[in-house]
């Protein structure tokens, strides 16, 4: 029995695209949200909402055996995760009944239903009222599934075509009163084309990213990529920690796109800690979805996600998530707007240095030869930055195994802010 503790002075509850949720942590449409049993366990664990695993037209999809594979770190830490599973393989009626029952039992939680039906208006018109009848809070359009479904003209096959995104979104807005969240695929060249199309179609929000086309590894004995089905493999959807940087960029691209201004964003992609979640929010997300971390650790991680985020918000004086949303967007810009006069230089804290030499060899072999290796009289070694040669690339800081040992110190150059457009070294300055 735990002792009662002081309530933190922060409110994690959100209203996202008209959908209320006690906290911003939702489970993404995926195996963990495939049926009532899992979803109720998730709600019991504390998740603010779920996006029910994608429903389609009957007959339901059929899945293969062997469905996941991983990109492992050397210590079997899962860096990235891949799946070749299709949308729900249960009858539509079963899912709709369970959604209805779960929503009745958990009225305060956000319950969004993911949908994927053929790209014809009739199909959408048919399914939308049935979903609405369950009492669900909103729908998410699965226009991003990269494996299997595109071969049938659905999923990413739609999401890679902005005209189709706009069309499908408009059908949904026409035939349903529910908020419409359009889930975007990252397997395109410019994510903004997709978000603009969703907005034009009347979307209430976008969510991203769906999974990335991937092969995680190859069995070098059998010469088959993974995951292995019989003697074959196929590309799958990549997710987990490794895709976070890709997702963060795409979220930021949309958040700072004037043509998508005001479009709520639900951040998805490799979120495993409260810091990851806060980063998505800082770059414009109003809610986040999690899948891989829950699949690897179980639903209880939502406790640490909520607690960590809440304590951090209190420490920074934020009262609600909306205070954080988009805080880092204005500081994210195009390369040409960066300050050409900014100069930062590495500094090694000799007290913390363990003399491993990793910074030295990285700089010496692959960068700017800006670290000197000195031998002390007692035979120990000492590494020092050659400030005149340091370009401030951060490589030494990145390779240093001791966090905080190497810091990047901004220099006062006395020069004013100067963008590339203003830089006399820019041969196209006049044009700019």
């Amino acid at each position, binding site marked *: 029995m735990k002792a009662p503790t002081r309530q933190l002075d922060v409110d994690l509850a959100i209203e996202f695209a008209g959908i209320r949720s006690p906290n911003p942590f939702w489970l993404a449409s995926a195996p963990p949200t495939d049926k009532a049993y899992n979803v109720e366990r998730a709600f019991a664990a504390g998740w603010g909402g779920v996006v029910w695993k994608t429903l389609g037209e009957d007959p339901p999809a059929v899945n293969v055996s062997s469905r996941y594979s991983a990109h492992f770190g*050397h210590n079997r830490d899962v860096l990235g995760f891949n799946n070749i599973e299709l949308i729900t393989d249960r009858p539509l009626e079963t899912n709709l009944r369970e959604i209805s029952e779960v929503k009745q039992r958990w009225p305060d939680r956000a319950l969004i239903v993911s949908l994927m039906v053929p790209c014809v208006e009739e199909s959408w018109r048919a399914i939308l009222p049935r979903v609405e009848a369950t009492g669900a809070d909103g729908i998410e359009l699965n226009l991003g599934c990269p494996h299997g479904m595109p071969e049938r003209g659905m999923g990413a096959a739609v999401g890679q075509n902005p005209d189709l995104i706009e069309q499908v979104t408009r059908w949904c807005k026409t035939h349903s009163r529910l908020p419409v969240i359009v889930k975007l695929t990252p397997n395109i060249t410019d994510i903004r084309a997709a978000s603009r199309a969703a907005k034009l179609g009347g979307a209430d929000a976008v969510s991203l990213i769906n999974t990335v086309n991937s092969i995680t590894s190859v069995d070098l004995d059998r010469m088959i990529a993974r995951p292995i089905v019989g003697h074959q493999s196929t590309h799958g959807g990549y997710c987990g920690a490794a895709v976070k940087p890709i997702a963060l960029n795409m979220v930021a691209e949309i958040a700072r796109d004037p043509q998508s201004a005001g479009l709520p964003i639900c951040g998805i992609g490799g979120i495993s800690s409260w810091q990851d979640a806060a980063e998505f929010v800082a770059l414009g997300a109003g809610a986040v979805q999690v899948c891989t971390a829950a699949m690897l650790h179980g639903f209880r991680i939502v406790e640490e996600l909520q607690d960590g985020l809440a304590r951090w918000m209190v420490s920074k004086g934020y009262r609600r998530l909306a205070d954080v949303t988009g805080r880092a967007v204005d500081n994210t810009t195009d390369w040409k707007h960066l300050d050409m006069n900014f100069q930062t230089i590495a500094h090694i804290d000799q007290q913390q240095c363990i003399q491993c030499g990793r910074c030295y060899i990285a700089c010496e072999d692959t960068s700017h030869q800006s670290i000197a290796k000195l031998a002390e009289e007692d035979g120990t*070694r000492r590494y020092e930055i050659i400030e005149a040669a340091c370009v401030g690339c951060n490589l030494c800081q990145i390779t240093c195994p001791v966090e905080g040992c190497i810091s990047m110190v901004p220099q006062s150059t006395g020069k004013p802010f100067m963008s590339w457009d203003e830089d006399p070294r820019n041969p196209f300055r006049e044009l700019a």
Partner: protein
Amino acid sequence: MNDSLKHLPQVGDVIAEREKVEAGFRDLHPPLTQRQAIIESQRCLYCHDAPCIEACPSDIDIPRFIREISEDNINGAAQTILEENILGGSCARVCPTEILCEQHCVRNHHAECQPVLIGRLQRYAIDHMHFAQHPFVRSADSGRHVAVVGAGPAGLSCAHRLATHGHRVTLYEARHKPGGLNEYGIARYKLVDDYAQKEIDFLLAIGGIEIRYGQRLGDNLDLDTLERHHDAVFLGLGLGDNRRLGLDDENAPGVATPGLLPATDYIRELRQSDDLLQLPLARRCVVIGAGNTAVDMAVQMARLGAEAVTLVYRRGVEAMAATAHEQEIARANGVRILTWARPEQVLLDHTGRLAGMRFERTELRDGNLAGTGETFEIGADAVFSAIGQCFDDHSLAEAGELARELGRIRVDGHFRTTRQGVYAGGDCIAPGEDLTVQAVQHGKLAAEAIHQDLMAQQEVA
């Protein structure tokens, strides 16, 4: 040895459970499992100019072999080790890594204080190597024939490296098995399962090496003859003699005081024993000395079932040659470490057998060790001296022109003695530090020097 301790009961007379005794002589540090090895290998930071390499007397590229383990390239890791240290398997087990590679690991710094377990990773690589073909090849026969005296770590390492260069080698070994200290002098739980012999079998698989046993320099072997029959001679004689306590009633040559003997004699017997229960047991045991041999002796007697084992040293613990790790093992096995006392007199019973020892308390006076005059006695069934070994001059009595230094053989930077064509390495030379790994390095480098010199002769001719 048996003569000196034959009046004592056997282990089996006192301890009934064979399993209990034998359990005490299994691997002191069990080998890493694959999972443990992978996790541990991940801790290596792959340092540039790694301090662990600098600290390794045999120059093993440690970060490389650890990275190879982490990438599941076990044969690659093993070869990285063996190409610098052909006895890398036994060194992994017997090296005092806590004062060598692991002491210099950057992960020792205050934030972590936990080095990568380099020794145990090295053992993992060697234990799990599996070569379809022997990883070392012999060069074409050079027509040269080198004599290597002593099949201990120095001699074996030298012989192997000479063989790779295509020279024929005859190893002359005084005992009936090769291995030297690995076979006869290491605590049983540090090298188990006849590992020394298995390792030598692998080493000899290079070919071109013949071993002749029962060949003792100074007895049935002399340097002049060796020089006549070979193109070069390497002496890896080790330390054949024990320092004496210098007391009345201490064993004079040929006169044994029952119950008093060098620890190395007992350890040799223990290592060779097929049945631990037949070993003589000193229920009350005193060991005099402060090095790793003293600790090995004390701990092994404790594990055989002794009731009271006392290790006596004339100075403080900080001056002990046994590493802190070894001292910890001793304490964990119930060995009492008694400092600032030196032996004064052997105590005998009415039958002339050892009954104990009288010690005088010592102190530092003006920086010098001095007796305080205060004495005390410890009753004991046996007293083992482990105050260091020394070079047995008898072996080279005839070889007058071989210069000595600090009581051992003098060599130059290329392991050449003062006698042309005669080289030496390992514990028998002046800079010897009584480390297996250093003996291996000496043998290896001496072999390279011999090879260079032989090739130079060939060019001149």
